[in-house]
């Protein structure tokens, strides 16, 4: 008997043949006594198997909590989340401290940024200063014009009314006089070496010379003003490094909050 025939008669016993297969096998059983004998043999064996006594479990196999792996305490994930939250908080504190102390290169300390309101206050103060200086500068400018006129009358220098704004960077009256003398000395040299100049060129030269002849206080004020401008520039347009720093701080804060919240939630669920 082939395996195929054996499988067919075995499936026939269990009603697992299709209608077509069953019809074909039944036709063969009528003409093949060997096949029929094997069918009866299989049927006897199946009957014996089904006659086996029912086996009962010798004991209960119900699970205890220990078998089931039920933990009475917090779940395993709880300490991981708790540690992650603490670590993120520590890193956040370090980043904020570094930010306040100016750890990021090329950036002013955050404390300096807090001085922005003071810098902004300086600007209104600078304006009155410029106004104060302007009247002082103008008399200075006029004597300059008066002095230079005899020296180069053909050149006809004039100081424009723009001097008040330039005088913001100028010194106080007493120091400006010494500057005037220095300016004259500087002016003399280029004037002597230069050929005939137009009135406008001379005017521009005198203005630039008066600008360059600033005193030490003027330089100090200039430096302070420059710092204010720099601080303003830094505050108005933060670099990419600073942006990344802020993003890291924000991410650490969010991670600390989320992991801490999850840890508390897991703890409450395990206690419930």
């Amino acid at each position, binding site marked *: 008997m082939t*395996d195929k025939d*054996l*499988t067919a*008669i*075995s*499936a026939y016993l*269990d009603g*697992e043949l299709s209608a077509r297969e069953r019809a074909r096998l039944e036709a063969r059983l009528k003409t093949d006594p060997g096949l029929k004998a094997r069918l009866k*043999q*299989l049927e*006897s*064996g*199946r*009957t*014996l*198997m*089904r*006659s*086996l*006594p*029912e*086996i*009962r*479990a*010798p*004991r*209960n*196999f*119900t*699970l205890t*909590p220990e*078998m*089931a*792996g*039920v933990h009475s305490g917090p779940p395993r994930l709880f300490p991981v989340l708790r540690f992650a939250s603490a670590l993120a908080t520590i890193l956040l504190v370090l980043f904020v401290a570094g930010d306040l102390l100016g750890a990021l290169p090329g950036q002013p300390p955050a404390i300096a940024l807090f001085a922005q309101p003071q810098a902004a206050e300086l600007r209104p103060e600078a304006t009155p200063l410029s106004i104060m200086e302007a009247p002082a500068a103008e008399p200075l400018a006029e004597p300059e014009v008066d002095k230079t006129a005899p020296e180069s009358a053909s050149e006809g220098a004039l100081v424009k009314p723009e001097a008040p704004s330039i005088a913001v960077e100028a010194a106080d009256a007493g120091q400006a006089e010494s500057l005037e003398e220095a300016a004259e000395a500087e002016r003399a040299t280029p004037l002597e070496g230069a050929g005939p100049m137009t009135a406008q060129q001379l005017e521009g030269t005198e203005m630039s010379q008066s600008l360059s002849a600033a005193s030490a206080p003027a330089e100090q004020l200039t430096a302070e003003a420059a710092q204010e401008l720099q601080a303003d520039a830094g505050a108005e347009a933060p670099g990419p490094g600073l942006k990344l720093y802020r993003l890291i701080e924000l991410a650490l804060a969010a991670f600390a909050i989320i992991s801490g919240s999850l840890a508390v939630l897991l703890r409450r669920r395990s206690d419930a």
Partner: protein
Amino acid sequence: MDEAALIGYAKKGDLDAFNRLVLAYQDMAYAVAYRILGDPDQAADATQNAFISAYRGIRGFRGGSFRAWLMRIVTNACYDELRRKQRRPSVPLEPLGSDGEEIDSPSWMEDPSEGPEQAVVRTELAQAIQHCLEQLELEFRSVIVLVDVEGFNYAEAAEVLGTPLGTIKSRLARARLRVQDCLQGFQELLPGIFRLERESSL
């Protein structure tokens, strides 16, 4: 509470609900394990391990036949037990007790409703069948235990064993033939088998 509800609660971690499922299926689970392993202690270990695995993996049950899903875990536990013990397929004709002596009538074979002659015949027959089952290779033994002993249909047996339907058909046919041939050798020792066979066919 019906089975679907118990399964639902068990999926949520309700151990009491799962243990009610254990009580409903432990006889079948132990019977399958015993028929495959042939040893009561190994069958008990495999059954317990199977229920532990079932509880831990119950969220993986996606519906369908819970019985088939559970018996798959039981058969896998039996395979693991066999690999661990490296047990030989042949066993004594009669099961051994804890003292190593052969047991004439194991407690799980006793039926208080039948007479002594019937009990002896039934016990001897069961022992003979168990002996012939254990002569089969594991994959043939599993199929015939599920279909002929426990009454699974072909589709369920295929699901339990993770084999195609055609493979189930061919393996069952060959297992039946070999058990039948094996039992023929007990005819001389167990003439009562034929009497029992005639009574079953009536």
